[in-house]
C-alpha cells in the first residue's frame, strides 16, 4: 500500500499509520474490523476539515471495514427544529456527504455499540470518540487506542492500525485500585464518580472495587466522565468487566472514594442556577434510558424544554414504541445524530441542566454554558 499500487490516498493513509506506529514504537500493523471516525461536527472541524474530507472523497478514498461516525453538529433530519441556520446545515450535510461517498455508514453516534457496530471481546478496532473507546475497551474487552479523526480514517481506508498502546496486554494492566464507599443510585452518580477518578488517575488505568451492581448505562456514564476529566481509555470493575479477573491488583496505589467526594463533584460541576433547558443523552441515550424518561414525563407538561440525545437507530425504535410521542407530548424532543457538546447550543441557551459528568465538564468550555449537574429524576421534577 505504501508504494502507491493502491493509489495516492491509500499510500498517504498508510504512511500516516506507519509514522504514527514509529512514534509510538509499534512492531507491526494489525487488521481492524471496526472503525469509528471523529471530527464530524462542522462546529468542530470547520471549513478546513470539510475541504479536506471533500478532497479525499473526490480522490477516491474508500473504506474497507465497517465504519461509523461520531455525532454531527445537528440532527441530520430535524435540524430546523433545533434552531440551526441554513449555512451551518449546508456545510454539515456536505461533510456527511463526503463520508457517505467514502462508504462510511453515516450513523453519527458516540454509542456505535448500541446502533449496530458491536465488536467482540479482544477484537482489534480503531475508534475515536473517548467514551466509545472507554466502553469498547472496558465493558466489551475489545482493543482500541483513542484515535484522532485522520488516524481513524486511515484505519478505515487501509483496514489496519499500528500495534501499540491498548492493543498490547501489558498496557491493559491497572495502576490504581479505586475502592468505592459511596451510594451509586443514578446515572449521574456514576458520572460524579468518573469525574473524581478521572481527575485523579489522568491517563492511567483504574481498577474499581465496591461497585456491586451497574447497568451498561451506568458504565457508559462512568467511562465517559473519566475520559472527560482525565484521559482514561480503559478501566476494570471487579466481578463485572471481562478482563478484571485477569488483573493483578496487589501493591497498586489505593484510592478510596466516599460520599463526600461525589458531593464535591456535584458542587464543582454545578456552575449555574436556573437552567434554560434540560439535556440528557451524553453519551447517547440507550433504549432503556428512553423508556425511563418516557415513563417519568408521561402525562406531564414540562415548563422547560427537554432534549434527549440519541442515535438515529435508537430513536427509530423509540418512535415505534411510542416513547418519542410521550416525550414530545410533555414538551420535550428526541434529538438524533448529535448532542449538546458538538451542536452550537450556545446560540440557544446559556444555562443547561445535565445528568452527565462528561457534558457537565465540557459545556462551559465548548458551548459557553453555565451548568446544573444533578440526577435526571431531580432535574425533571424541577423542569
Amino acid at each position, binding site marked *: 500500500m505504501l508504494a502507491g499500487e493502491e493509489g495516492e490516498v491509500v499510500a498517504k493513509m498508510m*504512511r500516516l499509520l506507519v*509514522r504514527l506506529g514509529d*512514534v509510538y514504537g509499534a512492531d507491526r500493523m494489525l487488521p481492524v474490523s471496526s472503525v469509528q471516525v471523529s471530527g464530524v461536527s462542522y462546529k468542530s*472541524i*470547520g*471549513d*478546513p*476539515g470539510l475541504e479536506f474530507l471533500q478532497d479525499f472523497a473526490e480522490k477516491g478514498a474508500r473504506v474497507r471495514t465497517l465504519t461509523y461516525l461520531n455525532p454531527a453538529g445537528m440532527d441530520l433530519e430535524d435540524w430546523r427544529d433545533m434552531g440551526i441556520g441554513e449555512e451551518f446545515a449546508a456545510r454539515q450535510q456536505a461533510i456527511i456527504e463526503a463520508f457517505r461517498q467514502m462508504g462510511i455508514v453515516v450513523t453519527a453516534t458516540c454509542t456505535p455499540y448500541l446502533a449496530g457496530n458491536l465488536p467482540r471481546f479482544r477484537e482489534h478496532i480503531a475508534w475515536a470518540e473517548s467514551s466509545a473507546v472507554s466502553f469498547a475497551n472496558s465493558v466489551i474487552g475489545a482493543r482500541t487506542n483513542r484515535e484522532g479523526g485522520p488516524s481513524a480514517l486511515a484505519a478505515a481506508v487501509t483496514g489496519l492500525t499500528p500495534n501499540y498502546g491498548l492493543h498490547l496486554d501489558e498496557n491493559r494492566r491497572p495502576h490504581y485500585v479505586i475502592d468505592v464507599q459511596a451510594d451509586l443510585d443514578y446515572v449521574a452518580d456514576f458520572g460524579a464518580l468518573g469525574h473524581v477518578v478521572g481527575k485523579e488517575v489522568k491517563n492511567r488505568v483504574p481498577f474499581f472495587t465496591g461497585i456491586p451492581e451497574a447497568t451498561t448505562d451506568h458504565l457508559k456514564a462512568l467511562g465517559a466522565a473519566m475520559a472527560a476529566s482525565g484521559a482514561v481509555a480503559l478501566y476494570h470493575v471487579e466481578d463485572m468487566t471481562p478482563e478484571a479477573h485477569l488483573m493483578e491488583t496487589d501493591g497498586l496505589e489505593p484510592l478510596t472514594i466516599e460520599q463526600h467526594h461525589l458531593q464535591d463533584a456535584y458542587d464543582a460541576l454545578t456552575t449555574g442556577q436556573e437552567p434554560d433547558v434540560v439535556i440528557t443523552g451524553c453519551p447517547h441515550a440507550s433504549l432503556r434510558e428512553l423508556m425511563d424518561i418516557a415513563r417519568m414525563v408521561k402525562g406531564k407538561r414540562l415548563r422547560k424544554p427537554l432534549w434527549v440525545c440519541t442515535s438515529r437507530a435508537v430513536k427509530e425504535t423509540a418512535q415505534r414504541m411510542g416513547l418519542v410521542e410521550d416525550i414530545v407530548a410533555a414538551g420535550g424532543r428526541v434529538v438524533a445524530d448529535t448532542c449538546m457538546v458538538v451542536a452550537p447550543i450556545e446560540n440557544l441557551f446559556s444555562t443547561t441542566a445535565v445528568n452527565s459528568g462528561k457534558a457537565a465538564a465540557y459545556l462551559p468550555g465548548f458551548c459557553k454554558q453555565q451548568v446544573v449537574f444533578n440526577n435526571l429524576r431531580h432535574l425533571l421534577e424541577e423542569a
Partner: protein
Amino acid sequence: MKARAIYPGEAEGEALVSPEPIGFYGGIDAATGVVIEKGSPLEGECVKGRVLVFPCGKGSTVGSYVIYGLQKNGVAPAAIINRETETIVATGAILAGIPCVDGVDIEHISSGDTVRVVAGEREAEVILK
C-alpha cells in the same frame, strides 16, 4: 544537523522561526498562510514558501486539516522543522506531503537564515547556508 524524517522530501527556503509552539487551527489562515494568532511571535508573517521552524504543535487536532488546507491553497511552508513533531503536525505534514523533520536543536536557526532540508524515509539532514 542530523534529524529524524517525519515526511520525506527536499526543500530550501528562508527560515521563519517561532520559539513558541504553533496552533494551526485559529493560528494560521489556511487561505493566505498568514499567522493570525494574537500575541504569537510570528503574528502577521506569511508561512508561504518559508521553512517553518518551531518547537512543536499545540491546540486543536483540526490543525492537521489546516496544514493540508495551506498546501491545497498554495500557501504552505516549503518544509517544517521541529524540536519534536507531535501527532497534529505529523498528521498534517503527511496528509499535505510537506517535508517535515524533528529532533533538531532549533535554537541554532534564526529567522532569515537560508535553510535546506533533506529528508529520506527515516533519516534527515538540516543544512544551514
